[in-house]
């Protein structure tokens, strides 16, 4: 006994529908390059893919952040190199003052040059990058020192910035510092270690004409200069940390993209092969159905 046409047809149509659905899926994978396009494609992988997307977005943003930070650190490091040069000039002036036998007017002239150095040092403390004062700590919209005021021990007056500095996110999830305050760099410790106080001390010593005071100031300039170079070295470390973090960020991005690719990307060769197989199956199904016997015994009666 043969089956009725309706039952056979419904089964054929259901099977054909399944084949067509597989072809559409294969074609979609080939054209998009993605095996995972809908949440129903690979449900077990969805959460991992979204988390990787989030990590990649976060990592890329940290990369952008590091680029911005690198600009600021480089600007700060350049300012400290200039400051170091100013301290060399101050050392030269102090040495000249120590060896000045004429005294009086020459010392006054040297004092004016030291004052000019202090003014330049003020400008360096006000170094900005992308509209921010790089030595003001968290108060980056405020200049760390406002003006030269030689009545003050440091020649500039009180530090206006914040004692705290920002920390920057490392791609590995930790944070690290990338800046120092102007107070730490230019005015830490006492007269013998502070850049600003040693310069002001030299200015006052030259104005006083006291050889002893000038010699002491010269010594302080030397010590403060060494401190300043320490800060400069610290900024070199900051540059290195930012550079290492940027390198790490790039490597991590490659790793994350590779992991995402494994989960999300289509195996093009497999998808194309599957599509070919399913297309062949579709053709076979259609041809075989068309070739089904369409006659019955009635056709041979009479």
């Amino acid at each position, binding site marked *: *006994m*043969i*089956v*009725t*046409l*309706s*039952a*056979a047809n*419904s*089964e054929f149509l*259901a099977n054909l529908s*399944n084949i067509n659905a597989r072809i559409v899926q294969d074609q979609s994978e080939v054209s998009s390059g993605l095996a*995972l*396009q*809908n*949440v*129903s*494609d*690979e*449900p*077990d992988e*969805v*959460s*991992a*893919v*979204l*988390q990787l*997307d*989030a*990590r990649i*977005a*976060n990592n*890329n*943003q*940290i990369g*952008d*952040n590091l680029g*911005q*930070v690198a600009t600021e650190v480089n600007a700060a490091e350049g300012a400290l190199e200039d400051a170091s040069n100013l301290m060399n000039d101050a050392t030269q002036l102090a040495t000249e003052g120590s060896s000045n036998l004429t005294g009086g007017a020459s010392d006054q002239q040297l004092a004016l040059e030291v004052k000019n150095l202090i003014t330049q040092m003020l400008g360096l403390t006000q170094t900005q990058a*992308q509209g*921010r004062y790089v030595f003001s*700590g*968290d*108060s*980056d*919209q405020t200049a760390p020192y406002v003006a030269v005021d030689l009545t003050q021990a440091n020649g500039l007056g009180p530090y206006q910035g*914040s004692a*705290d*500095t*920002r*920390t*920057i*996110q490392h791609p590995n*999830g930790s*944070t690290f510092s990338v800046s120092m305050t102007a107070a730490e760099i230019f005015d830490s410790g006492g007269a013998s270690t502070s850049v600003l106080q040693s310069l002001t001390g030299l200015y006052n010593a030259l104005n006083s004409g006291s050889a002893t005071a000038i010699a002491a100031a010269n010594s302080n300039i030397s010590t403060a200069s060494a401190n300043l170079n320490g800060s400069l070295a610290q900024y070199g470390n900051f540059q290195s940390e930012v550079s290492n973090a940027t390198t790490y960020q790039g490597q991590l991005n490659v790793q994350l993209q590779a992991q995402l690719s494994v989960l999300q990307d289509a195996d093009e060769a497999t998808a194309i092969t599957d599509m070919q197989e399913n297309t062949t199956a579709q053709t076979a199904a259609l041809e075989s159905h068309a070739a089904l016997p369409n006659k*019955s*015994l*009635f056709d041979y*009666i009479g």
Partner: protein
Amino acid sequence: MADLLTSLTAAANSMAAYQQEMQVVQNDTSNATTPGYVAQNLTLDALPFNPNGTSAGGVTTGVLESSRDLYAEQNVQTQTAAENYSSTTHDTLSALNPTFSLSSNTSVSASFNTFFSAVSQLSVTPNDSQLRQSVITAAQGISQSFQAASQGLSSASQNLAQNAATVVGSINQIVSQIQQLNVQRRQTGTQNLDPGLDAQMYSDLENLSQYCNFTTIQSADGTMNIYLDGQQGLLVGTSQLKLQSDTTPTQLQVTDSNGADVSGEITGGSLGAYLQAYNTTLPGYTTQLNNLAQGFATSINGQLAAGVDSNNHAGAALFTYNAASPAATLAVSATITPAEIAAAGVGNPGGNDNAVALDQLQSATVLNGYTFTQSYGNLASNVGSDISTSQNEQTTQQSLLAQAQNLRSNASAVSLDEEATKLVQYQQAYDATSKLINVIDDLMQSVLGIIQTS
């Protein structure tokens, strides 16, 4: 002479029987593709025959038997209900794929990424008012994403309720048709069951099985009684119990005309799928989405409250929501200004401590051991898994339904070859009997000739 006349009468009766058989063949052939129709078989009964007596023999027709296999019919109805349940579930859930799109820039997960990128950027330059505004804009994007996802689920529920109402109407209409057939069957009785009425009955039952699961019991008077799984009668004799659908704030209900909730008895067919999706599946997704929205807003607001804004004031809340439906109502505070974003830690105004802490929430497992993105991923994964499962079930059910239909066809469908064979068989018998009549006629003419010549 009397024997010849008896044989002639018997032959004529036999030809009448063959004519009836050929009528059955004609009816079977004509209805070979009629929904619900099954092959009929008219039995032939041999008549008493005694050549020495008065019994001339011959053949007469017996009862008209239906080849319907009730087990096969019930199996098809059961598998039809199961297949429609899985296909309807798959169609319903597949409509949610765009709501949880993996490639959309406005999905919840993509909005999380945009928001935390804005926060991360702010952490580098925490006093930049434009970046503060960017954080607020990104937060608005998140609230819109949650609202869109919630709206997607809500729209799906509304569609389910409308579809359920349509299906309930179809069920009532089909049961009403069967009720009319019951009236006719009661009139004709079980002994003279009309194949056409029977075909309509089983065609209607198969149509009904697309919409809901049920069981049938045929009464002695030939009427068909239809019961839901819990034995709630949809049709008992000629008494129909009409259904209606209704939605409460949280539930889709199917009630009978007495107002009794019969939803629990409908576990198959498209109506069963609508009830399951509306009452269980979609609310589950909504709950997960609400928990995520509330957890996210609470965490962000909590972290902001731990910091200070540009004016060294305690951080203001960024998000607001209605606890009854957090995802649908999640919004950015209407009063917050860029300056009120608490990027700094307490005691360090102008700093970025709190912005960093806020950004680190992206990778923190603050929601039952999962990050925000993982929580959303779990929800999307659940949706995807349900869609995938329903697709697999649909494929399986299609196969089972095809098997059931084939089984039924093998048992009771009209076979054109078989009908043609019967036709040839009865034609030959008819021809042979008619020739026999010719022979008897010749014999009788011979006998009559003897009389004339004698």
